[in-house]
């Protein structure tokens, strides 16, 4: 059984790598996606993945200030998804 610190750094490496690979796969769907809904979904998923990357970076560096960054990214990502969808549905974001 590996020691706790070794397991921790291995887990951090695996987390970084899988989130980066997930981000690249989202970009593939962003280019491929035949409809607009697929592209909006790919952009929203990329924002959530970026949020995950910031959280794992905060664990790795032991810094506490990344929490505010992640809260802002989450809020702005949601608002931008809703704005894109409303633009397609109605042609107008705020009536």
């Amino acid at each position, binding site marked *: 059984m590996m020691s706790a610190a070794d397991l921790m750094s291995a887990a951090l490496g695996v987390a970084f790598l899988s989130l980066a690979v997930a981000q690249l*796969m989202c970009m593939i769907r962003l280019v491929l996606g035949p409809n607009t*809904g697929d592209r*909006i979904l790919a952009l929203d*998923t990329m924002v959530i993945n970026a949020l995950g990357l910031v959280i*794992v970076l905060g664990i790795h560096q032991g810094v506490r200030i990344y*929490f505010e960054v992640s*809260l802002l990214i989450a809020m702005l990502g949601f608002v931008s998804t809703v704005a894109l969808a409303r633009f*397609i*549905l109605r042609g107008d974001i705020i009536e």
Partner: protein
Amino acid sequence: MSLEIIGTYATALFLLIGSGFALVGVLGLLKFNDSMTRLHAPTKVGTVGIGALLLASMTYSYVSGAPSMHELLIMAFLFVTAPISANFIAKVNLHQRACDTPPAPPRDDTWSTLKSPEAEGDIPSGNEGS
């Protein structure tokens, strides 16, 4: 087994689970071939993956001596807003006719996204100013 070692193992476990779920969610996004089925995977499995990563961050802060609970805020925010964005993207798919037509509702006329705007007298028709 001191509490610190248990906490470190728990953090590593949550990290692996969270990143695994995020990867599976995006795999579903790439794999399916219909617009509406592609919607299910990243919005839900991805949200739980990020929830597990936030749990890892909380337990790690307990281990390193400065306990913090504010990751619960991000978790609550994501659980409330992920269904809303999924609903909007489903409406975009319905509006652009990118999926099979759904069956009609039993009591009313039609679904709100598919309802065309009634001509209330002030929407000009196409060939007036020729």
